[in-house]
């Protein structure tokens, strides 16, 4: 979902599904943080779903687990 779409739909919940993501480094963190900031501004919540173990590790290092629900 692009920033433009988020601002247009103003969703209460944003679910990012990592089920098909085979690799992610901190470049992906920047993207998740960017979406989190936008969703937080409109009072929504962010959930990361189907997150592989090695991606969870990067997310935790960045403190994303304190901002979003990671499953």
């Amino acid at each position, binding site marked *: 979902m692009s920033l433009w779409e988020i601002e247009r739909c103003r969703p209460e919940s944003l679910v990012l599904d990592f089920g098909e993501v085979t*690799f992610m480094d901190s470049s992906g963190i920047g993207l998740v943080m960017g979406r989190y900031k936008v969703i937080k501004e409109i009072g929504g919540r962010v959930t990361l779903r189907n997150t592989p173990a090695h991606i969870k*590790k990067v997310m935790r290092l960045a403190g994303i687990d304190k901002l979003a629900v990671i499953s």
Partner: protein
Amino acid sequence: MDISVINEMKVTLPAKSCNEAVARAVVSAFAAQMDLSIVELADIKTAVSEAVTNCIVHAYRDRAESGCTIEIMCRILEGNIFLVRIKDKGCGIEDIHKAMEPMFTTAPSEERAGLGFAVMESFMDSISVHSKPGKGTSVTMKKKIFSKSLMRTGAANS
């Protein structure tokens, strides 16, 4: 070749985004000789990806013309140590200490987390960074590999 070096590989790639995945694949293939675990391999791949991304995004930021290359050198050292060095001839880093601070980024407007070095430090055992402004940067990282077969034996004994 130094006596403690068991095997060595050197690869030079153009500084293009598509080569981030190539660098990870090449380093993984070389490291696979070491009987390492999936977690160790994922750690190495992530650290390499961070270093290569830094070369593309930061080192060569203002000179995207052809001829910008990234040199990746891997070594297997005695004692089951994996070493990887990623070197560029880009803009260099003025203040390495500051560049390595978590969340510091020179490109905040681009949704960059500023965690590249933090990930490298956390996922590898050691990191050393050498840089000369205008000349380039080299990042050398090491990781001790705990053999899967040894870990299995350890688990069986405990």
